[in-house]
């Protein structure tokens, strides 16, 4: 029987050496889903038959000497905004619960081409925005470290399923922090790659100009493996970048010597003050990175509220435009959190939106200037450990500026990295951000930090 917890890299090595059967690995995950997901609600649809068929096919191919690479035979989950041919893709919403796409999203096709085994469709906040919600056709995902706690969102099911070992990795999307938030609160690794690196085609949109698809897994190395498969130019996505894709895993040298890091402390000490455990954990992580040979210095940029306002206006107005027709005709078919946020979105004016995208250009330039002479910037991903799920209000994203939003505004690669455990053993994290299209350096630092610290050795006790 496969171990309860395996990384993609560990499982891939065993599969390649034929010491682990993809069928056995798939069955062990299905058994784990059966045993645990009644408490976690990370899946809204388990695709057991399809997964078994894919695992058998992978096993046969590998036995015939046609090993495709490190995702071959690996069980993954898909956030239920990633379209899947012939399988409902709902956005976790009553509004689209009967939507059956004709084709896979481009990134899903790429993952399947790499040989992965799709275990099912994962919970999300409604249309990647409104949650946690208790009035949708499926319940919200729960945090495996403490099932009374929030996973964050919107890639809530992916965060929970990866942390619980129900899948070895999964897909997320990030418009204001929807990969990095759940990665932070569920204690996993999640990278929002550079805007345009992964095709958005076939992924239900929240806000066209801020939406990023990306991988979530237990380690930075696993994220690198998934990103390698998902990235690449797609002429059918107008935002897709036509650039060479580096070897992300090869970039994981374990060495951070010479990397220059700018620490944006005011984001989490003054603008959205983090609790003491989070501040201490980030300070300790920065010190550790300096001991490893990186240099860190504090930098100051515009207040977090400026970045958040710019991003939230763009996000809410673009989302409103996408859902306007259904909002007018079937308002109460949406969950209350989503629909009431959308009602607020409708109050922004056209001039507000234009001023926000003018502000966006200024902020992109500002970060570029701030990163002159730096390789990376570092700040918090979340201000504290996961709160109680029933303590999260429907306008919570408006009450405090999102620590993750600045890097949606700029399109920069940004990653949440676990850096310890706080109250009740709940995960703490920091956020590391690179220059656009330098995703490899973000992954390199995250991987080196993970290998030099003990945090990846602890898993939820389920």
């Amino acid at each position, binding site marked *: 029987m496969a171990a309860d917890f395996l990384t993609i890299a560990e499982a891939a090595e065993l599969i390649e050496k034929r010491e682990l059967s993809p069928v056995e690995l798939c069955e062990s995950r299905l058994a784990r889903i059966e045993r645990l997901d009644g408490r976690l609600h990370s899946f809204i649809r388990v695709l057991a038959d399809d997964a078994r068929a894919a695992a058998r096919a992978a096993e046969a191919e590998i036995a015939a000497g046609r090993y495709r690479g490190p995702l071959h035979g690996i069980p993954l989950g898909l956030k239920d905004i990633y379209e899947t041919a012939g399988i409902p893709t709902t956005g976790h919403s009553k509004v689209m619960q009967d939507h059956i796409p004709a084709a896979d999203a481009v990134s899903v096709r790429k993952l399947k081409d790499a040989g992965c085994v799709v275990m099912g469709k994962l919970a999300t906040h409604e249309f990647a925005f409104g949650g946690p919600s208790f009035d949708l056709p499926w319940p919200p995902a729960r945090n495996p470290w403490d099932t009374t706690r929030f996973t964050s969102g919107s890639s809530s099911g992916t965060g929970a399923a990866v942390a619980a070992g129900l899948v070895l990795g999964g897909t997320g999307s990030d418009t204001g922090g929807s990969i990095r938030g759940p990665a932070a609160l569920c204690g996993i690794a999640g990278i929002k790659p550079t805007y345009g690196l992964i095709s958005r085609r076939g992924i239900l949109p929240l806000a066209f*100009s801020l939406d990023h698809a990306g991988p979530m897994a237990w380690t930075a190395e696993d994220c690198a493996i998934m990103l390698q498969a998902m990235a690449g130019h797609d002429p059918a996505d107008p935002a897709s970048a036509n650039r060479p894709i580096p070897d992300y895993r090869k970039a994981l040298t374990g060495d951070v010597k010479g990397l220059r890091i700018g620490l944006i402390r005011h984001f989490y000490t003054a603008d959205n003050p983090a609790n003491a455990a989070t501040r201490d954990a980030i300070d300790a992580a920065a010190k550790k990175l300096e001991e490893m040979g990186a240099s860190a210095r504090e930098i100051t940029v515009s207040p977090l*509220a*400026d970045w*958040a*306002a*710019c991003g*939230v*206006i763009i996000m809410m107005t673009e989302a409103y435009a996408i859902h306007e027709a259904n*909002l*007018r005709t079937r*308002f*109460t078919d949406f969950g*209350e959190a989503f*629909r*009431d946020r*959308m*009602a*607020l979105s*409708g*109050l*922004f*004016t056209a001039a*507000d939106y*234009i*001023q*926000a*995208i*003018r*502000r*966006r*250009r*200024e902020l*992109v330039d500002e970060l570029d200037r701030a990163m002159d002479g730096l390789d990376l910037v570092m700040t918090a991903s979340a201000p504290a450990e996961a709160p109680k799920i029933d303590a999260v209000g*429907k*306008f919570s994203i*408006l*009450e405090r500026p999102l620590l993750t939003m600045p890097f949606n505004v700029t399109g920069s690669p940004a990653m949440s990295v676990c850096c310890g455990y706080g109250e009740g053993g709940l995960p703490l994290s920091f956020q590391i951000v690179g220059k656009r299209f330098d995703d490899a350096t973000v992954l390199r630092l995250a991987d080196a930090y993970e290998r030099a610290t003990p945090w990846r050795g602890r898993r939820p006790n389920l």
Partner: protein
Amino acid sequence: MTRQELDAALARLGLDVPEAERDGIADAVKYVEQMAASVRKPRSVMAEPAHTVAFPEK
């Protein structure tokens, strides 16, 4: 924004918002107003939006 103004705005949008949810939305309008003010910085009339199209050079 007063509750009356909110009701009028929602009617103009064509949104059939349940009565029980309107006071909560009205309370949150302050965030919309704060953010809309926040993106209005002193800037030249020439300041371009981020979405200005740049065609690739041949």
